[in-house]
């Protein structure tokens, strides 16, 4: 015990609340420990003076002030202080609903740029998807135009139902699941590089019924009858559309097929010259994203036979290409 000071027991030793064994141990330790004896002297003096600690008087108006405080209206809380000037009472439920709303805004972010872009495109996309766009309301657009777009979109949605939301927003989702046409367009146009020039010589095709095929066609793209060989579902959709509607170049929609496909594949028509509705003689210049080249080529095969392609190799998948199509009889 000599090496273990008993300072923690000394207060109780003075009070006499230690057990006999503890008291004996403390006495034994004190006999040989000057530090603890000094501590004991301090505690005795401290206890003596603390017991004589004076009391402060109670103010005469103590009870009166308590009554006045009890009778006084309760001070407004934080919400009260905030809304008192407006005299708005905000119940707890309303505060909770407000907090949840703020939380939802933070989580779902309905006001970010992408969501705002979605809202801006929704009406046009919905009109196209529903097929309610009438010819009278869309001068310059033929029924085939609408059908072609819907066919491509329907195939796309079918191929990737999870991307329906993106498709609904007017973004044509490529079936291989990579990037939406809209996003691809943004990427393609952001580079600012001039489009790669391609030229085609086209001649009206003659498809016999819906099952007609042209195995002898030029180019690297698969034939219409070899559905399994199509690289994408939208490529199949474009071709099927042309077949099912028997849109050969001899029909009214010969040039429309090109124009509509360009539009459906996020491209644009640069120029149409000397081309009559039957598609005879003339040329059409379009620009499309390079990644959609093979889809475009497959799409026009329903209506056109490709006589010549320069260069013969397909373009790289980035950037845009400009296709100059010379139409022959």
């Amino acid at each position, binding site marked *: 015990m000599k090496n273990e000071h008993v300072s923690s027991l000394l*207060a109780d030793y003075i009070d006499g609340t230690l057990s006999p064994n503890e008291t004996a141990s403390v006495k034994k330790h004190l006999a040989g420990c000057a530090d603890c004896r000094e501590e004991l002297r301090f505690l005795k003096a401290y206890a003596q003076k603390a017991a004589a600690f004076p009391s402060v008087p109670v103010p005469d108006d103590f009870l009166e002030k308590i009554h006045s405080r009890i009778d006084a209206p309760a001070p407004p809380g934080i919400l009260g202080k905030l809304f008192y000037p407006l005299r708005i009472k905000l119940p707890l439920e309303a505060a909770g609903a407000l907090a949840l709303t703020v939380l939802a805004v933070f989580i779902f972010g309905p006001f970010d740029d992408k969501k705002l872009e979605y809202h801006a495109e929704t009406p046009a996309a919905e009109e196209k998807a529903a097929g309610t766009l009438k010819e009278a309301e869309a001068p310059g657009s033929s029924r085939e135009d609408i059908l072609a777009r819907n066919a491509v979109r329907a195939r796309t949605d079918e191929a990737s139902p999870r991307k329906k939301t993106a498709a609904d927003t007017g973004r044509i989702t490529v079936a291989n699941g990579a990037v939406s046409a809209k996003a691809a367009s943004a990427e393609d146009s952001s580079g600012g590089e001039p489009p790669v020039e391609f030229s085609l010589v086209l001649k009206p095709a003659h498809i016999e019924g819906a099952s007609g095929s042209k195995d002898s066609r030029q180019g690297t793209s698969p034939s219409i009858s070899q559905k399994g060989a199509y690289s994408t579902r939208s490529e199949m959709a474009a071709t099927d559309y042309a077949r099912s509607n028997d849109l050969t170049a001899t029909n009214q929609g010969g040039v429309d097929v090109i124009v509509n496909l360009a539009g459906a594949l996020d491209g644009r028509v640069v120029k149409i010259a000397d081309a009559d509705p039957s598609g005879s003689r003339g040329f059409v210049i379009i620009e499309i994203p390079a990644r959609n080249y093979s889809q475009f080529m497959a799409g026009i095969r329903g209506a056109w036979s490709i006589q010549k392609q320069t260069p013969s190799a397909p373009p790289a998948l980035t950037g845009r290409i400009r296709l100059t199509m010379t139409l022959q009889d």
Partner: protein
Amino acid sequence: MSRNDKTSHASQPDDEALIKEFLANNARAFDRLVVKHQSMVLNLCFRIIGDYDEANDCAQETFIKVYNNLKKFRFQSSFSTWLYRIAINTCRNRLASSDNRRKKKTVRIDNPSDVDGETLDINDCSFNPVAVFEKNEDSLLIHKAISSLPDELRVLVVLRDLEGKSYEEISDMTGVNLGTVKSRLARARHILRESLREVFA
């Protein structure tokens, strides 16, 4: 054992009777409860907080809480213990408030010139507590030493050394377990010994 403690124990049955009268819509019973315990509560607050006006405000707040919560009193503990508990919590809240921390630097009961080496202003209060310690300078020094203790130690020292409460009562009143009460008190006394060494030399 302080005289406050003796008083409260001796009048325990009266407390219960007064509470029952109050609950029977006798408002005067509350006044009698206040008058009976006001000195004990005010002195407890003063010893813990160290400032008379702050203590006066805390003591009033304590009785207002009693008034508002007396219907919830279940007579499972003595009214005195319940009252102590409310007063201690009120003082703790006051000590913890940033407002008090700000005032703490400017309000002292004693000569402020030797506190932290800064020149401090004495609060313009209705009563100068220095007068209480005029004839008892040692008590003033003890008060200063206790006031300089950390809050969690100060409450325990006040209850044990100035109010004369047992360890068990302190544990019950403060919610601190018995072993912690004892160890904290030992630590507090060690600090007090250091600060009062010259006084009791």
